[in-house]
């Protein structure tokens, strides 16, 4: 496996086919938990870990998985991985577990995970599959973090609040009050804020891509945003 190929996978997963902003999969957790940056980061990391382990397992077993049992096997693998992550979080990141609660087991229902197992890991060798899981997870995680930061900043005027839940006591020092005496902007904290925030992020990404297309010297000319949707 050449490095350029791995780079290609990374760019595809994290940017060109970004789960949150381009493929628009897994929106339920994405919209639900991103009221703060730390919540978004935690769910993003858990999803990334799930993607990597499930992609790797599926890829290792791909020779054994006949087409007719492929889907139930994926479901079994993904469900096991997610439950293990849930148990570990419950034991070692208890406060975070309480905040994210139901959305950890709901990672199972994130179509992006079974989608990557089907579209990539079942057809590729372990290393690229692991890379694909990492890249897709990274893209999803970045989206969650950006949306979380956007909503936390506009809704509460803080950033990294609750970082101690993820990082232990020293995370408390990370918590920033960017806008002191912020009165609280309810719209950003409630579900409509999630939709609006996501729309803004998608618009920003599309604008970025469109600008690149307009530049004749751009090396990437085949890219038209939105054509990757399935």
């Amino acid at each position, binding site marked *: 496996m050449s490095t350029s190929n791995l780079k290609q996978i990374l760019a595809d997963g994290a940017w060109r086919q970004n789960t949150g902003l381009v493929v628009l999969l897994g929106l339920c957790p994405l919209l639900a938990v991103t009221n703060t940056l730390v919540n978004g980061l935690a769910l993003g990391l858990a999803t990334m870990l799930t993607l990597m382990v499930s992609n790797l397992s599926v890829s290792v*077993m791909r020779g*054994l*998985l*006949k087409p*007719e*049992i492929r889907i*139930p*096997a994926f479901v*079994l*693998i993904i*469900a*096991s991985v997610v*439950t*293990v992550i849930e*148990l*570990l979080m*419950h*034991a*070692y990141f*208890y406060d975070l577990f*309480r905040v994210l609660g139901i959305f950890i087991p709901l990672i199972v229902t994130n179509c992006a995970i079974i989608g990557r197992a089907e579209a990539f890991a079942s057809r590729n060798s372990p290393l690229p599959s692991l890379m694909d899981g990492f890249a897709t997870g990274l893209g999803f995680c970045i989206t969650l973090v950006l949306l979380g930061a956007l909503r936390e900043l506009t809704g509460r005027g803080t950033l990294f609040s609750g970082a101690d839940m993820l990082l232990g006591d020293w995370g408390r020092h990370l918590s920033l009050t960017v806008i002191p005496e912020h009165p*609280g902007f*309810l719209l950003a*904290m*409630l579900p409509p804020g999630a939709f609006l925030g996501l729309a803004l992020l998608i618009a920003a990404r599309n604008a970025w891509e469109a600008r690149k297309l307009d530049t004749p010297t751009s090396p990437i000319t085949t890219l038209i945003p939105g054509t990757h949707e399935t």
Partner: protein
Amino acid sequence: MSNDSHPIIRSSLLLGLIALLGTALLAGVNELTHERIIEQEKLRILQQLNEIVPGTSFNNDLLEDTIEINDETYFRHPAPVKVYRARMDNQPVAVLMTIIAPDGYNGDIRLLTGISASGEVLGVRVVSHRETPGLGDPIEIEKSNWILGFNNRSLQNPETDGWAVKRDGGQFDQFTGATVSPRAVVKAVHNTLLYFEANKQSLFDTPALSESAKTAGENEH
């Protein structure tokens, strides 16, 4: 092997094997994390309790010395109320009760209320609620100090008429745009005090759940 002629059997076996591996993995991780999870949950409850009754004021095992009571005339909710009892050298110090205010704006508000043996409120905390964010949620300690207004209150402070929000002629603040949530909390705390006054003796004297369970277990043998 004749497996190739029976693709269904082969596939089923393979699927079974994956399920078995998954189960084994989960069982292993569960075994590893089980004790720590229980410990974390206990710690969490203890932290909540200690916020109201400082750990230095009692020396019994708070989490073991519990009873459950059920009195819908006071608590207006069918769910049993869990009572943690704090004692110092077997002398009653305080009770901590998990009560539910059923008349929040958006359903149940779960509260933890601490009452000292002399009948004073040591503190109240909201454990969970679904009140409107921004309007009803200043009942949370994270959002405002309102809930601390119950500290040191008792049935005589204020008298019965004062146990209401200001709009209803009482002594407790309501929030701008939200009267229902504070009203529900005030009423629930007041009822808890009334129950405590009427049942003080039995609250402290009833044998703890774990002990009565132990005795019941022994009797069966």
